[in-house]
């Protein structure tokens, strides 16, 4: 029988995959993908908990996470656009004028 833990473990794995993506990505666009993966992982967890506790709060949370993800994408892409216009690249290795 599939229990709450199963879903949560899947969620944990996907979350870690997302984290790995965040860590290894050098292209900002693809880095954003990884953050989406992480948020999706959390969504699975919320939906699962909500289901097993028979409680709607989890779904609410997941719903808001989707909204947040959407807004983030909008703002993030906006920033990426101005950045791209200025630098002509999305590689974050080229983006280290401030350090120390």
């Amino acid at each position, binding site marked *: 029988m599939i229990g*709450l833990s199963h879903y*949560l473990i899947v*969620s944990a794995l996907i*979350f870690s995959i*997302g984290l790995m993506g*965040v860590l290894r990505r050098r292209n*900002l666009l693809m*880095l*954003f993908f990884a*953050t989406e993966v*992480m*948020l999706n*992982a*959390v969504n699975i*967890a*919320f939906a699962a*908990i909500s289901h097993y*506790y028979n*409680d709607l*709060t*989890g779904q*609410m*949370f997941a719903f*808001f*996470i989707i*909204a*947040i993800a959407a*807004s*983030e994408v909008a*703002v*993030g892409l*906006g*920033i*990426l656009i*101005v*950045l791209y216009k*200025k*630098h002509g690249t999305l590689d*974050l290795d080229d*983006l280290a*004028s*401030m*350090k*120390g």
Partner: protein
Amino acid sequence: MLQPINVSLESLNLITLAPMLIAIAGGLVILVLDLISEKLHKSLYVMLTILILVIDFGATLGLNVNERGFFDVMLIDGISIISQLMIIVGSIIFIPLALTSKRFHEYSYPEFFALFLFMIAGFQFMVASDNLILIFVGLETASLSLYTLIALHNRANSYEAAVKYFTMGALAAAFFAMGSAVVYALTGSVELYKVAEVMATRLNETGIMIAIFGSAVLLLVAFSFKLSLFPFHTWAPDVYEGASAPLAGYMSVVPKIAAFVVSIRIFGMYIDLGVEWVRVTILVLAVLTMTLANIMALVQEDVKRMLAYSSISHAGFIMAALALDTTEGTTAIFLYYALFMFTNLGAFAMLWISRHKNRRFDKRFDHPYEKFAGFIHIMPVGAVIMGLFMLSLAGVPPFSVFWGKIYVMQAAVNSGYIWLAIVMGLNSAIAAYYYLKLIVYMFLMDPVKDVDTIYYNLSKPLMAVIGMATLATVGAIFYIQPLISYLYYMISASGY
């Protein structure tokens, strides 16, 4: 079938929403004004913003302590009121910095002011709730606005800063979400008062401690990022450097106040439940933060970047007070920020007036130390005032930050953390070096270049702002008493 829901308007306690709604409405008004006429000067928007914030302030002041509203989503307790007040005051004193004598990119957008007000609303939501969902949404609203405001400065550095802040913020948001999920899994609730209740019953269950710790850690990561605790602070110096000086100063105070309030609610809960591990972890992070940020600040060549590290260090200082989880400790947090706010405002304002489009002293930095060499000869009053701010930041009595500092240290001593007080003391001594370095440049060196552009952007409103900051910094001793008693009353009234 579901029963129709009857909700009486009184039970919603809509007044609890009033402050945020004022800010939002204000933002919308500005947007509408912009639609009507495009030719409006920034001073109009600045004054409008201030007015709106003043109304906001009044509305907040009128709130009753310990009320809930809107299906208990809104929580108006002592700390939510004082933190809202501080957020508003902080915003009021920072926004006039837009009134420079020279024009800057971001202030030519009316949207800047709208976003600014939306951001304030976001912060207010954040502090006025114990529901993780609303906290999250408020946080993101504020953060997204802030990213945009940073980017609007329209320089390569500010884009870079915005990207860094944004990306790391996204990661932190993921951690926050995951942490909330674990909390939810543990307690079936995302409302902190309920969470505390349920968690208290579950503390003794075997094998569950890992999840409790884990939830705390995930949330701690998210807030450590916001509060720029080591090792999640890496964004801060770069963002401060990339952002305009007013915004950097603003960021070192207002968002942190909001984040601290949420941290008090969340981690205070853990500590109250008896999860000592959280306290220890926070203390370790706090000590690491204040120390490492201090020693990194030592070697900075740019004043703004130095101030960034110094704000990180100050945040570590305050985080330690949070870990004490006593009424005094919590009072110390607010007192510290209330005092730090003015000094920091002054310091960043002094940087702001000297901002020049071209970097005449250094290829990379706007405000290298050399720029201030011999400031005393160029602008004696300015140098003295800047010196006062630096001394205040260094914790030299009787200037404002000193009182915050001893209050924090006293709180530490009172809770038996004498070692912590000593660490704080030693850190203050280290910190004195880099503040002193600026004083040394200003007072003891000769100007590198014969330049009078050092107060390039100075205008009457800015002078007024700086003068006010100076008064607040120097005269701290006279208003500490009412401030402490008000804060203490509000905080103890809300049970912290």
